[in-house]
């Protein structure tokens, strides 16, 4: 930028302080330019960005007047007031002295102490006697001299001044010592050149205001002050969806685009729908309080026909199965739990499905709860992405096809399938995705084809049902660069405001 352009870009504040850059500190620039400190500092910062000054900050101890100090600077120190009184009267009793000097108790005592120390007075029998001559009294004390030069830097003090600090420091609010960042301003060559060049105080336009726009003459032919368009501006924040919900909406879009209908439903459900209808035996370890949240309440089961069909599947098997061969207990099925997977929604959907609805595809995105302690890789609540495909001609390769499509869209490039086990699917499969940075396969969760012990009781006939339900939270962590699962629902507002958007 040439000098002329730089000059045009100077803001009114910058222009104002330009002549005073040689002053030794900021408060003087403030005084001379009649700007407050913040404005001066900001203007200096802009001048620095333009290469006009070099700024360096260092911490310095600064001594300033305290509240009382500011007052005394005008009215005189209390001891001065007492001295003036004594100068006239020479001798006074204490009470009289305090009354006439109109000093507070504290001030009075401090003054006596200070004057006695300097041997200016003597105390005898409750009387104060002046112990010096007029000339001495007329001299300013070290303290008085010191107060007048404040504020000042600690480092530059003379021994006398240090003595004065010591004696004033013990008294209430006369001085205060502060650590302050102090700017040292050095004018650059460019700065000197600009200072020396004639800055026309032309009336360039600052902010364009409606008032200016109203009258053409106010802007026509005028210069617009150049902005420092490259300087950083403060960040702003907007309202937005929670980042987990943003990604859930994306998943919702993937499934609906593939022709899936959404299932929703209760988190609190009976063991019947969460476990029994899914052929999970009643003594399965997953049904213990250790793993699943129970509520001390029972709820009614659905219609008898369905309950009996599920009972048969467990006790003796259906459709050629041997079943689990134990006595199935209706009461256990009535116990209410917080769903440990969203597959209860699939079971309920299947129970309502009619023959003419086939083929049909459903998905769910919902929270599930497990009785876990909480650490970076575990939590008691997380989202699951659930799906079923009910189709006479569905097969294992279709299952892999749907899953591959979903995870590819979620941003995983390499996907593989490995054998797995779940009580409700056969064949079962576990989805693994390749993590290119960690160079490992991550296990995302399970899928399979519902066993006939599930499809026959729920649908009334054997139809292959492709089914899956995988943890969702883990698969979005990488996108948001989150390493600890607890971050997902922590609601740190500063982080939420800065969190990037789901851009898929």
């Amino acid at each position, binding site marked *: 930028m040439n000098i002329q352009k730089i000059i045009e870009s100077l803001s009114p504040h910058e222009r104002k302080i330009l002549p005073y850059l040689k002053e030794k500190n900021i408060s003087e620039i403030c005084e001379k330019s009649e700007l407050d400190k913040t404005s001066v500092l900001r203007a200096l910062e802009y001048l620095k960005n333009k290469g006009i000054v070099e700024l360096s900050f260092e911490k310095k101890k600064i001594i300033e007047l305290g509240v009382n100090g500011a007052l005394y600077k005008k009215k005189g120190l209390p001891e001065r007031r007492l001295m003036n009184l004594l100068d006239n009267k020479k001798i006074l009793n204490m009470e009289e002295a305090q009354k006439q000097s109109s000093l507070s108790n504290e001030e009075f005592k401090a003054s006596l102490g200070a004057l006695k120390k300097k041997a200016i007075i003597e105390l005898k029998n409750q009387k104060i006697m002046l112990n010096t001559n007029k000339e001495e009294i007329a001299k300013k004390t070290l303290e008085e001299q010191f107060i007048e030069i404040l504020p000042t830097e600690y480092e530059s003090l003379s021994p006398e001044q240090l003595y004065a600090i010591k004696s004033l420091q013990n008294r209430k609010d006369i001085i205060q010592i502060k650590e302050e960042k102090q700017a040292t301003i050095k004018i650059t060559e460019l700065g000197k050149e600009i200072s020396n060049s004639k800055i026309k105080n032309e009336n360039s336009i600052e902010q364009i205001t409606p008032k200016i726009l109203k009258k053409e003459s106010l802007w026509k032919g005028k210069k617009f002050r150049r902005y420092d368009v490259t300087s950083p501006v403060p960040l702003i924040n907007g309202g937005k969806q929670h980042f987990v919900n943003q990604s859930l909406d994306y998943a919702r879009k993937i499934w609906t685009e593939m022709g899936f209908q959404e299932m*929703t439903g209760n988190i609190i459900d009976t063991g019947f729908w969460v476990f029994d209808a899914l052929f999970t035996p009643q003594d399965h370890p997953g049904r213990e309080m250790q793993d699943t949240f129970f*509520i001390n309440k029972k709820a009614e089961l659905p219609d008898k026909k369905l309950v009996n069909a599920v009972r048969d599947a467990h006790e003796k098997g259906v459709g050629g199965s041997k079943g689990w061969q134990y006595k199935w207990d209706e009461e256990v099925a009535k116990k209410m739990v917080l769903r440990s997977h969203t597959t209860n929604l699939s079971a309920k959907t299947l129970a309502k499905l009619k023959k003419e609805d086939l083929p049909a595809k459903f998905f769910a995105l919902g929270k599930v709860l497990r009785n876990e302690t909480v650490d970076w890789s575990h939590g008691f609540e997380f989202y699951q992405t659930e799906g079923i495909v009910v189709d006479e001609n569905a097969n294992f390769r279709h299952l892999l096809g749907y899953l591959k499509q979903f995870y590819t869209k979620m941003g995983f490039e390499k996907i593989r399938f490995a054998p797995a086990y779940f009580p409700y699917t056969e064949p079962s499969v576990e989805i693994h995705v390749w993590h290119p940075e960690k160079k490992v396969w991550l296990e995302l969760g399970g899928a399979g084809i519902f066993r006939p012990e599930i499809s026959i009781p729920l649908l009334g006939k054997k139809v292959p049902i492709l089914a899956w339900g995988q943890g969702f939270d883990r698969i979005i962590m990488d996108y948001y660069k989150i390493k600890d699962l607890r971050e997902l629902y922590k609601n740190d507002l500063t982080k939420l405001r800065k969190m990037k958007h789901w851009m898929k």
Partner: protein
Amino acid sequence: MANINLNKKQFEKEIGKLDEKMKDRIAMLGTPIEKIDANEIQIEVFPNRPDLLSYQGFKRAFLPFLGRVTGLKNYKINKPEKNYKIIVDSSLKNVRPYTACAIVKNLRLDSTKIKELVEIQEKLHITIGRKRKRIAIGLYPLEKIKLPIIYKAVEPDKIKFIPLESNKEMSGLQILQRHSTGKEYAHLLAGKAKFPIFMDADKNILSMPPIINSQLTGRVTEKTKDIFVECSGFDFELLNKCLNIIVTNLADMGGRIYQMEIKYKNKKITPNLMSEKIKISLENTNKLLGLNLNEKQLKQLLEKMGYGYNKGTVEIPSWRMDILHEVDLIEDVAIAYGYENFVPEIPEISTIGQEDLREIIKRKISEILTGLNILEVSNYHLTNKRDQFAKMGLQEKHENFVEIEGSKTDFTILRKNLTHYLLKILSENIDSEYPQRIFETGKVFGKNKEITEEENLAVAISPGNFTEVKQILGYLSKMIGLKIEVEEKEEFPQHFIGGRTTSIKIDNKEIGFIGEIHPKILKNWRIKMPVTIFEIRLKEIFKGLK
């Protein structure tokens, strides 16, 4: 989930070098590798395959999978010799009624094998044994036992023997009270008048299942050549399967299996290693897997998984417990075929996608509110009593709520509202930039006569006054096109300031409240900025927009 450790040296000597391809094969059998160190390979065994819970069992399944020796493996089984008998007493009826037993002879045990035996017992106990509840397993050195063996139930104080890991004779009760293993499993015998014992012909107690063996007769060592094995429990079929897993494991170590005669009312002979036969249809297999196999290929694949196959009939090894149905075989066909060899395919069937209406409405509400520069937050459904009640100025005893049992954290109830969670967020973010404008939609739970579960919406603004939040409510009402009204009420939630709160209504139905939060509540949360909140039930909005 059970993990087992395979000895790496033994693996490489008897199976092959553990290179990347081998690792891949192990995983593709359905036994994912958990970790590998200098000496051991740790694999995960799924709950349906207890027969894989030992090196021998794994090797038996893995070699055919690699194509080395395929088909059904047969074991020679010897008839019971004289006195190879268990006399089962009727006193066990309500205690632990069944046992399945065997003798395995000519073993040459070493420390590796003993370790494997201990491990398989332990893993079977934990998994199919359901922590010894369903199955307890005992192994005994035969040379210390005089046959026949008696299995019966006896009063606890009449049981006296030195249990393993002890040097003192103890009574049945003392074992449950004082012995570490006894204490761990005491609940399994709690409330029983009699405890089960195995006893030999000399009346020496061998063990008290499902708790512990005797120190004198119940410890297998490297010197042990012949072993007596028993499984006890409640389901004879299950015990047989478990016994088969153990005896075939011992036979794979070089032992010879002998049957025993078990005298219930009727005589039974165990173990029974006869393979079960079930049908498999080539058509069903191809249909379910989306393949086009011929019968020869089907046979080969089944044989790779250790089955026998002949004209549509599959012979199932007697140690497999997971084959309930043809589909279980079909899965094994898929594993033998290799999951990596399936070509994923999306079929051309036409279905119409549809989002749930409530989800659409929730998203629209979210769009409206984020447009007002409000940030969405997301909280747990579980909460704790301190946040839900104490900090909201409520007493737990006057409230109805849904409590969950046995939570491992202090989150022990389901949230009743979103308001307390929004205040919690404001309280945890006092160092974050103001104004703080947040909202949440989500489920809340109640318990009156019935348990209820419904969707709510709450908005909190801080610093914010009544007018500002009422404006937000008004804007929302306009945007969704439903008339939302307010009405001042005598009764209102006590976290609001009286005279600065109203109820919110749709169609004259109350759906929530709006108000400025009382300083006493803000103080509980250590919030130093004024807060105004509304929370409404979305049910009526869903209904209104249908």
